[in-house]
Protein backbone atom coordinates (compact mmCIF):
# COMPACT_ATOMS: atom_id res chain seq x y z
CA UNK A 1 0.00 0.00 0.00
CA UNK A 2 1.63 3.28 -1.04
CA UNK A 3 1.74 6.07 1.44
CA UNK A 4 -0.60 8.90 0.39
CA UNK A 5 2.07 11.50 1.06
CA UNK A 6 4.64 9.78 -1.14
CA UNK A 7 2.21 9.29 -4.04
CA UNK A 8 1.01 12.86 -3.71
CA UNK A 9 4.63 14.03 -3.83
CA UNK A 10 5.26 12.12 -7.06
CA UNK A 11 2.08 13.45 -8.60
CA UNK A 12 2.88 16.99 -7.48
CA UNK A 13 6.32 16.75 -9.05
CA UNK A 14 4.86 15.42 -12.29
CA UNK A 15 2.25 18.17 -12.20
CA UNK A 16 5.04 20.64 -12.88
CA UNK A 17 4.67 19.35 -16.42
CA UNK A 18 0.94 19.98 -16.70
CA UNK A 19 0.18 22.57 -14.07
CA UNK A 20 -0.79 24.96 -16.84
CA UNK A 21 -3.63 23.31 -18.63
CA UNK A 22 -3.55 23.98 -22.32
CA UNK A 23 -6.32 25.68 -24.23
CA UNK A 24 -6.66 26.26 -27.92
CA UNK A 25 -6.19 28.74 -30.66
CA UNK A 26 -6.64 32.40 -29.93
CA UNK A 27 -6.97 34.87 -32.80
CA UNK A 28 -5.66 38.45 -33.09
CA UNK A 29 -6.07 39.76 -36.63
CA UNK A 30 -4.44 37.27 -39.00
CA UNK A 31 -2.54 35.57 -36.17
CA UNK A 32 -3.64 32.28 -34.62
CA UNK A 33 -1.94 31.50 -31.33
CA UNK A 34 -1.97 27.73 -31.28
CA UNK A 35 -2.77 25.61 -28.24
CA UNK A 36 0.43 24.95 -26.32
CA UNK A 37 1.22 22.18 -23.87
CA UNK A 38 3.21 23.70 -20.99
CA UNK A 39 1.44 27.02 -20.68
CA UNK A 40 -2.02 28.21 -21.58
CA UNK A 41 -2.67 30.31 -24.68
CA UNK A 42 -4.00 33.85 -24.27
CA UNK A 43 -7.46 33.24 -25.75
CA UNK A 44 -10.98 32.49 -24.60
CA UNK A 45 -12.75 29.86 -26.65
CA UNK A 46 -15.05 26.84 -26.98
CA UNK A 47 -12.65 23.92 -26.97
CA UNK A 48 -11.54 20.82 -25.11
CA UNK A 49 -8.46 18.78 -24.33
CA UNK A 50 -9.30 15.12 -24.83
CA UNK A 51 -6.72 14.64 -23.39
CA UNK A 52 -3.49 16.53 -22.71
CA UNK A 53 -1.19 13.71 -21.73
CA UNK A 54 2.38 13.65 -20.45
CA UNK A 55 4.89 11.00 -19.46
CA UNK A 56 7.74 12.03 -17.19
CA UNK A 57 9.93 10.79 -14.38
CA UNK A 58 9.93 13.16 -11.39
CA UNK A 59 12.46 11.15 -9.38
CA UNK A 60 14.37 9.25 -12.07
CA UNK A 61 12.89 5.93 -10.93
CA UNK A 62 9.12 6.10 -11.21
CA UNK A 63 7.22 7.04 -14.37
CA UNK A 64 4.12 9.20 -14.05
CA UNK A 65 1.50 9.51 -16.77
CA UNK A 66 -0.74 12.55 -16.36
CA UNK A 67 -3.88 12.72 -18.51
CA UNK A 68 -5.68 16.05 -18.28
CA UNK A 69 -9.24 16.46 -19.55
CA UNK A 70 -10.62 19.96 -19.77
CA UNK A 71 -13.66 21.66 -21.32
CA UNK A 72 -13.63 25.37 -22.13
CA UNK A 73 -16.90 27.25 -22.65
CA UNK A 74 -17.48 30.87 -23.61
CA UNK A 75 -20.07 32.82 -21.67
CA UNK A 76 -19.62 35.95 -23.78
CA UNK A 77 -17.13 36.38 -26.67
CA UNK A 78 -14.60 37.70 -24.15
CA UNK A 79 -15.43 35.71 -21.01
CA UNK A 80 -15.18 31.97 -20.59
CA UNK A 81 -14.95 29.26 -17.99
CA UNK A 82 -13.24 25.90 -17.88
CA UNK A 83 -13.53 22.75 -15.80
CA UNK A 84 -11.05 19.93 -15.71
CA UNK A 85 -9.17 17.29 -13.81
CA UNK A 86 -6.19 14.98 -14.15
CA UNK A 87 -5.88 11.23 -14.02
CA UNK A 88 -2.49 9.94 -12.93
CA UNK A 89 -0.87 6.58 -13.44
CA UNK A 90 2.37 5.83 -11.63
CA UNK A 91 4.37 2.96 -13.04
CA UNK A 92 7.33 1.25 -11.37
CA UNK A 93 7.18 3.09 -8.09
CA UNK A 94 10.59 1.81 -6.97
CA UNK A 95 10.08 3.05 -3.43
CA UNK A 96 6.97 0.91 -3.20
CA UNK A 97 8.28 -2.35 -4.62
CA UNK A 98 7.82 -1.35 -8.25
CA UNK A 99 4.04 -1.30 -7.91
CA UNK A 100 1.67 0.78 -9.98
CA UNK A 101 -0.90 3.24 -8.68
CA UNK A 102 -3.65 5.22 -10.40
CA UNK A 103 -6.10 7.89 -9.35
CA UNK A 104 -7.58 11.32 -9.97
CA UNK A 105 -5.78 14.48 -8.96
CA UNK A 106 -7.30 17.84 -8.06
CA UNK A 107 -10.33 19.09 -9.97
CA UNK A 108 -10.39 22.75 -10.97
CA UNK A 109 -12.52 25.52 -12.40
CA UNK A 110 -11.30 28.64 -14.20
CA UNK A 111 -12.80 31.96 -15.21
CA UNK A 112 -10.94 33.82 -17.95
CA UNK A 113 -11.47 37.28 -19.42
CA UNK A 114 -9.89 38.47 -22.65
CA UNK A 115 -9.51 42.18 -21.96
CA UNK A 116 -7.72 43.40 -25.06
CA UNK A 117 -7.18 42.41 -28.68
CA UNK A 118 -5.21 44.62 -31.09
CA UNK A 119 -5.66 42.94 -34.49
CA UNK A 120 -3.30 45.25 -36.38
CA UNK A 121 -0.49 44.43 -33.94
CA UNK A 122 -1.44 40.77 -33.49
CA UNK A 123 -1.63 41.32 -29.74
CA UNK A 124 -3.99 39.68 -27.28
CA UNK A 125 -4.09 39.51 -23.49
CA UNK A 126 -6.28 37.82 -20.88
CA UNK A 127 -6.58 37.47 -17.13
CA UNK A 128 -7.82 34.46 -15.21
CA UNK A 129 -8.76 33.29 -11.75
CA UNK A 130 -8.63 29.55 -11.03
CA UNK A 131 -9.65 27.40 -8.10
CA UNK A 132 -8.18 23.93 -7.63
CA UNK A 133 -10.07 21.63 -5.27
CA UNK A 134 -7.49 19.60 -3.42
CA UNK A 135 -9.94 17.24 -1.78
CA UNK A 136 -11.90 16.30 -4.90
CA UNK A 137 -9.64 13.56 -6.23
CA UNK A 138 -8.37 10.19 -5.14
CA UNK A 139 -6.77 10.05 -1.71
CA UNK A 140 -3.05 10.00 -2.23
CA UNK A 141 -3.29 11.69 -5.64
CA UNK A 142 -5.08 14.87 -4.67
CA UNK A 143 -2.96 17.63 -3.14
CA UNK A 144 -5.08 17.73 0.03
CA UNK A 145 -5.46 21.51 -0.01
CA UNK A 146 -7.19 24.03 -2.26
CA UNK A 147 -5.28 26.57 -4.34
CA UNK A 148 -6.44 29.86 -5.83
CA UNK A 149 -4.41 31.07 -8.80
CA UNK A 150 -4.38 34.51 -10.40
CA UNK A 151 -2.98 34.48 -13.94
CA UNK A 152 -2.13 36.88 -16.73
CA UNK A 153 -1.54 35.93 -20.38
CA UNK A 154 -0.31 37.65 -23.51
CA UNK A 155 0.34 36.78 -27.13
CA UNK A 156 2.23 38.87 -29.64
CA UNK A 157 2.68 38.01 -33.30
CA UNK A 158 5.61 39.58 -35.09
CA UNK A 159 3.67 40.11 -38.31
CA UNK A 160 3.76 43.90 -37.95
CA UNK A 161 7.56 43.97 -38.11
CA UNK A 162 8.68 45.05 -41.59
CA UNK A 163 11.24 42.27 -42.01
CA UNK A 164 9.68 39.30 -43.76
CA UNK A 165 11.79 36.44 -42.30
CA UNK A 166 10.72 37.20 -38.74
CA UNK A 167 7.00 37.77 -39.40
CA UNK A 168 5.83 34.13 -38.96
CA UNK A 169 7.14 34.14 -35.36
CA UNK A 170 4.95 34.74 -32.31
CA UNK A 171 5.60 34.87 -28.58
CA UNK A 172 3.14 33.97 -25.84
CA UNK A 173 3.51 34.13 -22.09
CA UNK A 174 1.82 33.33 -18.80
CA UNK A 175 2.44 34.47 -15.22
CA UNK A 176 0.63 32.88 -12.24
CA UNK A 177 0.46 33.68 -8.54
CA UNK A 178 -0.63 30.59 -6.61
CA UNK A 179 -2.24 30.93 -3.20
CA UNK A 180 -2.75 27.73 -1.18
CA UNK A 181 -5.47 27.68 1.44
CA UNK A 182 -4.63 27.88 5.13
CA UNK A 183 -6.27 24.60 6.11
CA UNK A 184 -4.55 21.71 7.89
CA UNK A 185 -2.71 20.52 4.74
CA UNK A 186 -2.19 23.83 2.97
CA UNK A 187 -1.18 25.79 6.01
CA UNK A 188 2.50 24.96 5.69
CA UNK A 189 2.76 25.86 2.05
CA UNK A 190 3.68 29.32 0.87
CA UNK A 191 2.48 31.21 -2.14
CA UNK A 192 4.34 30.55 -5.36
CA UNK A 193 4.98 31.91 -8.83
CA UNK A 194 4.73 29.96 -12.04
CA UNK A 195 4.51 30.69 -15.73
CA UNK A 196 6.37 30.41 -18.96
CA UNK A 197 7.07 31.62 -22.46
CA UNK A 198 6.63 30.10 -25.90
CA UNK A 199 8.25 30.92 -29.23
CA UNK A 200 6.23 29.75 -32.20
CA UNK A 201 6.93 29.66 -35.94
CA UNK A 202 3.72 29.36 -37.94
CA UNK A 203 4.07 27.74 -41.36
CA UNK A 204 0.39 28.56 -42.14
CA UNK A 205 1.17 32.20 -41.38
CA UNK A 206 4.31 32.09 -43.54
CA UNK A 207 2.40 30.78 -46.52
CA UNK A 208 -0.75 32.89 -46.20
CA UNK A 209 0.74 36.20 -45.09
CA UNK A 210 4.39 36.37 -46.10
CA UNK A 211 5.35 34.07 -48.95
CA UNK A 212 3.94 30.86 -50.32
CA UNK A 213 7.08 28.72 -50.40
CA UNK A 214 5.26 25.66 -51.69
CA UNK A 215 4.97 23.59 -48.52
CA UNK A 216 2.00 21.27 -48.94
CA UNK A 217 0.22 18.46 -47.11
CA UNK A 218 0.80 17.67 -43.45
CA UNK A 219 3.71 20.11 -43.04
CA UNK A 220 1.67 23.07 -44.28
CA UNK A 221 -0.37 23.01 -41.05
CA UNK A 222 2.54 22.74 -38.62
CA UNK A 223 3.67 25.28 -36.05
CA UNK A 224 7.04 24.28 -34.58
CA UNK A 225 7.56 25.75 -31.13
CA UNK A 226 9.71 25.94 -28.03
CA UNK A 227 8.20 26.32 -24.56
CA UNK A 228 9.87 27.19 -21.28
CA UNK A 229 7.87 26.64 -18.08
CA UNK A 230 9.03 27.81 -14.70
CA UNK A 231 7.87 27.78 -11.06
CA UNK A 232 9.36 29.01 -7.79
CA UNK A 233 8.35 29.93 -4.27
CA UNK A 234 7.07 33.42 -3.57
CA UNK A 235 8.08 33.13 0.08
CA UNK A 236 9.74 30.64 2.41
CA UNK A 237 7.88 28.19 4.61
CA UNK A 238 8.66 27.73 8.27
CA UNK A 239 8.19 23.99 7.79
CA UNK A 240 10.98 21.98 6.16
CA UNK A 241 10.02 20.38 2.85
CA UNK A 242 7.07 22.69 2.25
CA UNK A 243 8.83 25.17 -0.02
CA UNK A 244 7.94 25.18 -3.71
CA UNK A 245 11.14 24.18 -5.53
CA UNK A 246 12.39 26.34 -8.36
CA UNK A 247 12.03 24.38 -11.57
CA UNK A 248 12.71 24.99 -15.23
CA UNK A 249 11.29 22.75 -17.93
CA UNK A 250 11.82 23.05 -21.68
CA UNK A 251 9.49 21.65 -24.31
CA UNK A 252 10.30 21.35 -28.02
CA UNK A 253 7.88 20.10 -30.63
CA UNK A 254 5.11 21.15 -32.95
CA UNK A 255 1.36 21.66 -33.20
CA UNK A 256 -0.61 20.45 -36.21
CA UNK A 257 -3.75 22.53 -36.65
CA UNK A 258 -6.69 21.23 -38.66
CA UNK A 259 -10.23 22.42 -39.36
CA UNK A 260 -11.84 20.92 -36.29
CA UNK A 261 -9.00 19.75 -34.11
CA UNK A 262 -5.31 20.10 -33.35
CA UNK A 263 -2.67 17.60 -32.32
CA UNK A 264 0.58 18.47 -30.58
CA UNK A 265 3.67 16.55 -29.53
CA UNK A 266 6.68 17.78 -27.60
CA UNK A 267 9.82 16.41 -26.02
CA UNK A 268 10.33 17.52 -22.42
CA UNK A 269 13.77 18.55 -21.22
CA UNK A 270 14.09 19.11 -17.44
CA UNK A 271 16.59 21.91 -16.92
CA UNK A 272 17.09 21.15 -13.23
CA UNK A 273 16.40 18.31 -10.83
CA UNK A 274 13.17 19.81 -9.52
CA UNK A 275 11.69 19.61 -13.02
CA UNK A 276 12.34 15.88 -13.33
CA UNK A 277 14.97 13.40 -14.39
CA UNK A 278 15.48 12.34 -17.99
CA UNK A 279 13.48 13.14 -21.08
CA UNK A 280 9.70 13.10 -21.06
CA UNK A 281 7.00 13.59 -23.64
CA UNK A 282 3.75 15.55 -23.77
CA UNK A 283 1.02 15.90 -26.34
CA UNK A 284 -2.65 16.57 -26.75
CA UNK A 285 -5.69 16.04 -28.91
CA UNK A 286 -7.64 19.25 -28.96
CA UNK A 287 -11.17 19.82 -30.27
CA UNK A 288 -12.51 23.14 -31.60
CA UNK A 289 -16.17 23.23 -30.64
CA UNK A 290 -16.61 26.66 -32.22
CA UNK A 291 -15.92 25.04 -35.59
CA UNK A 292 -17.49 21.63 -34.91
CA UNK A 293 -20.76 22.96 -33.53
CA UNK A 294 -20.88 26.69 -34.33
CA UNK A 295 -24.61 26.98 -33.64
CA UNK A 296 -24.86 25.03 -30.40
CA UNK A 297 -22.06 24.06 -28.04
CA UNK A 298 -19.50 26.14 -29.93
CA UNK A 299 -20.89 29.63 -29.45
CA UNK A 300 -21.05 31.97 -26.46
CA UNK A 301 -24.04 31.67 -24.15
CA UNK A 302 -24.72 35.32 -24.89
CA UNK A 303 -23.29 37.84 -27.37
CA UNK A 304 -23.43 40.54 -24.70
Amino acid at each position, binding site marked *: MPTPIRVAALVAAAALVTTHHAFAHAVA*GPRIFVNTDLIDDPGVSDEANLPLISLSSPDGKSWVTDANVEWDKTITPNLGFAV*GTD*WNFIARDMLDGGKTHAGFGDAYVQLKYRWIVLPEHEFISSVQVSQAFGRAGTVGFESGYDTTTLSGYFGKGLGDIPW*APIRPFAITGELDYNIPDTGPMGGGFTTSWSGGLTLQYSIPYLQ*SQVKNVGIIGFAANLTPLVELAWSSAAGSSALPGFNTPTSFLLGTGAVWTGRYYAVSAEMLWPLNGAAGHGLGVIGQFHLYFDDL*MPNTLGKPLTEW
Partner: protein
Amino acid sequence: MRLTHLILPAMLCAASPAFAHAFLKNASPPVGSDVPVSPPTVTIIFTEGVEPAFSVIEVQNAQGQRVDKADPHLVNGEQTKLAVDLPKLPQGTYKVSWHVTSVDTHKTEGSFQFTVSP
Protein backbone atom coordinates in the same frame (compact mmCIF):
# COMPACT_ATOMS: atom_id res chain seq x y z
CA MET B 1 -14.23 10.57 -17.55
CA ARG B 2 -17.70 11.86 -16.92
CA LEU B 3 -16.91 14.80 -19.19
CA THR B 4 -16.02 12.65 -22.18
CA HIS B 5 -19.22 10.68 -21.67
CA LEU B 6 -21.12 13.94 -21.97
CA ILE B 7 -19.22 15.43 -24.88
CA LEU B 8 -18.82 12.51 -27.26
CA PRO B 9 -22.54 11.72 -27.55
CA ALA B 10 -23.19 15.43 -28.07
CA MET B 11 -20.76 15.43 -30.98
CA LEU B 12 -22.39 12.39 -32.52
CA CYS B 13 -25.75 14.12 -32.26
CA ALA B 14 -24.46 17.13 -34.17
CA ALA B 15 -25.43 15.65 -37.51
CA SER B 16 -25.94 19.04 -39.17
CA PRO B 17 -23.06 20.14 -41.41
CA ALA B 18 -20.24 21.73 -39.49
CA PHE B 19 -18.14 24.60 -40.83
CA ALA B 20 -14.95 26.21 -39.73
CA HIS B 21 -13.05 29.48 -39.91
CA ALA B 22 -12.16 30.59 -43.44
CA PHE B 23 -8.41 30.97 -43.87
CA LEU B 24 -6.40 31.65 -47.01
CA LYS B 25 -5.56 28.37 -48.70
CA ASN B 26 -4.12 29.73 -51.92
CA ALA B 27 -4.05 32.96 -53.91
CA SER B 28 -3.48 34.23 -57.42
CA PRO B 29 -1.12 35.99 -57.73
CA PRO B 30 0.61 33.85 -55.08
CA VAL B 31 1.41 35.26 -51.64
CA GLY B 32 4.72 37.15 -51.75
CA SER B 33 5.23 36.53 -55.46
CA ASP B 34 6.77 38.55 -58.30
CA VAL B 35 4.65 38.53 -61.44
CA PRO B 36 5.87 39.77 -64.85
CA VAL B 37 2.55 41.29 -65.97
CA SER B 38 -0.35 42.98 -64.24
CA PRO B 39 -2.85 40.29 -63.16
CA PRO B 40 -6.48 40.92 -64.24
CA THR B 41 -7.83 39.84 -60.85
CA VAL B 42 -6.77 38.89 -57.36
CA THR B 43 -8.37 35.56 -56.47
CA ILE B 44 -8.22 33.99 -53.01
CA ILE B 45 -9.17 30.39 -52.35
CA PHE B 46 -10.33 29.93 -48.75
CA THR B 47 -10.42 26.82 -46.63
CA GLU B 48 -14.18 27.30 -46.12
CA GLY B 49 -17.02 28.98 -47.97
CA VAL B 50 -17.45 32.74 -47.50
CA GLU B 51 -20.39 35.13 -47.72
CA PRO B 52 -19.52 37.60 -50.52
CA ALA B 53 -21.93 40.23 -49.20
CA PHE B 54 -19.91 40.40 -45.98
CA SER B 55 -16.46 39.84 -47.45
CA VAL B 56 -13.93 42.28 -48.87
CA ILE B 57 -10.69 42.10 -50.82
CA GLU B 58 -8.84 45.38 -51.11
CA VAL B 59 -5.66 46.05 -53.14
CA GLN B 60 -3.47 49.06 -52.36
CA ASN B 61 -0.38 50.40 -54.07
CA ALA B 62 2.80 51.37 -52.25
CA GLN B 63 1.32 54.81 -51.51
CA GLY B 64 -1.67 53.24 -49.75
CA GLN B 65 -4.14 54.14 -52.51
CA ARG B 66 -6.82 51.60 -53.31
CA VAL B 67 -6.43 50.35 -56.88
CA ASP B 68 -8.90 47.47 -57.24
CA LYS B 69 -12.37 47.80 -58.80
CA ALA B 70 -14.16 47.17 -55.49
CA ASP B 71 -16.25 44.34 -56.95
CA PRO B 72 -15.65 41.31 -54.71
CA HIS B 73 -17.40 38.31 -56.24
CA LEU B 74 -17.39 34.54 -56.16
CA VAL B 75 -15.60 32.76 -58.99
CA ASN B 76 -17.95 30.47 -60.94
CA GLY B 77 -20.28 30.55 -57.95
CA GLU B 78 -17.82 28.63 -55.80
CA GLN B 79 -18.14 29.90 -52.24
CA THR B 80 -14.50 29.20 -51.42
CA LYS B 81 -13.20 31.41 -54.26
CA LEU B 82 -13.45 35.16 -53.86
CA ALA B 83 -11.99 37.57 -56.41
CA VAL B 84 -11.70 41.27 -57.11
CA ASP B 85 -10.94 42.78 -60.53
CA LEU B 86 -7.93 44.99 -61.19
CA PRO B 87 -7.11 47.66 -63.75
CA LYS B 88 -3.77 47.34 -65.51
CA LEU B 89 -1.26 47.92 -62.74
CA PRO B 90 2.06 49.67 -63.23
CA GLN B 91 5.29 48.20 -61.89
CA GLY B 92 5.37 48.18 -58.12
CA THR B 93 4.51 46.35 -54.91
CA TYR B 94 0.86 45.88 -53.92
CA LYS B 95 -0.78 44.93 -50.66
CA VAL B 96 -3.86 42.70 -50.68
CA SER B 97 -6.02 42.92 -47.53
CA TRP B 98 -8.97 40.61 -47.01
CA HIS B 99 -11.74 40.46 -44.43
CA VAL B 100 -14.24 37.66 -44.84
CA THR B 101 -17.19 36.15 -43.06
CA SER B 102 -17.45 32.41 -43.45
CA VAL B 103 -20.79 30.73 -44.06
CA ASP B 104 -21.01 29.93 -40.33
CA THR B 105 -20.45 33.66 -39.55
CA HIS B 106 -16.87 33.40 -38.25
CA LYS B 107 -14.88 36.49 -39.23
CA THR B 108 -11.25 36.21 -40.32
CA GLU B 109 -8.76 38.54 -41.94
CA GLY B 110 -5.29 38.70 -43.43
CA SER B 111 -3.05 40.43 -45.92
CA PHE B 112 -0.16 39.72 -48.27
CA GLN B 113 1.90 41.41 -50.93
CA PHE B 114 2.76 40.76 -54.56
CA THR B 115 5.02 42.68 -56.90
CA VAL B 116 4.54 43.51 -60.57
CA SER B 117 8.05 43.55 -62.04
CA PRO B 118 8.20 43.26 -65.84
